């Protein structure tokens, strides 16, 4: 439950709406609700998100 104020950003991966709390700091990771990508806060003013580097989980059989 977001307690602080949140800004809504577009996910760089899927353009989904990602809520980011206003007190976020660079380097933190937020998660896109729609595509579940992990996004790194690469800048705070203005807020900038980038796809976090990701160990490709092997999801197969």
């Amino acid at each position, binding site marked *: 439950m977001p307690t602080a104020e949140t800004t809504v950003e577009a996910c760089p*991966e*899927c*353009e*989904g709406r990602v809520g980011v709390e206003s007190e976020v700091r660079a380097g933190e990771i937020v998660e896109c609700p*729609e*595509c*579940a*990508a*992990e996004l790194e806060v690469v800048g705070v003013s203005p807020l900038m998100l980038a796809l976090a580097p*990701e160990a490709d*989980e092997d*999801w197969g059989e």
Partner: protein
Amino acid sequence: MIDVAVVGASGYIGGELLRLLLDHREVRVGAAVSTRLAGSRVDRVHPNLRGRTDLTFTALDALGDHDVVFVAVGQTAGLDLVPRLRERAKCLIDLGADFRLRDPGLYERYYGTAHTAPELLGSFVPGVPETHRAELAVADAVSMPGCMAVASILALRPLAEAGVVAGAVTVDGRIGSSGSGVRAEQMNLHAERSGTMRLFAPTNHRHEAEIAQATGVRARMSATGVEAVRGAQVVCRVPVREPLGDKDVRRLYRQHYQDEPFVRIIAQRRGLYRLPEPKILSGTNYCDVGFATDPDTSTVVAVAALDNLVKGGAGGAVQCMNVRMGWPEHLGLEFPGLHPV
């Protein structure tokens, strides 16, 4: 508070209708019709309703008038029954296959028997609020598409309406054993049906015609019975006019579904449940839709999952009733589903 009746109430769709309607705050279940079990308690065959109702089954000819009548009888049984029941109800919602196709010729081709009430076909509104909400709000007769047809329609529609589909689509459906209904037949025996990957319709599945009618897209459909009681999934391979990437496709889905109460877009990069899967939808009215893209071959793989007895049947019908009555669309359909399951 309206009064409703369920015909075919001893079957699997009928039982699911009772489950949903008995807990629906605007509805009183006035009759649950069974020809075999008239006089018996409904919880005799639907044990989940124990302690929830003292309702007993009514004989078909004892059926009176009701605000809404839901008809969930077996294949082709509706041909005769539905026309007779229309006068019993302000609104009739048919869950069978007999009034889904507008073209009686297609009906005969796919069902192997001539349609005996072709003049009525035009009067049924397809029971898909996502595509026919306005017409459903005033409909007197509603025909629910088949469960895998609903899933396919919802999976394909954002692509079809955007005009990006480049040719025939293949639809690979998978479904659990409740899709065969309540009758005891050899092929539905536990020892035979358990663990199968049974391609019961390798080509020309009947839902092809429904999908084409609803989306304008030619579909070639096969279907497989897999190990599950509830649940249906469709995997649609869609040739597209130009290479489309995930973002492009997501934008199309979002346009159609972002305000839909029962369609969720599931296409994720991580986690265990990245694309739509039926098991977490058991008992819910969701149809989850998702996709993957292969720009190299200009293909989109569109996927949808639902509970065949709920969004693919009884739940969809209740949603249509809600639309018809002007009630909030989610009334009686709030169950979120379970995990793990």
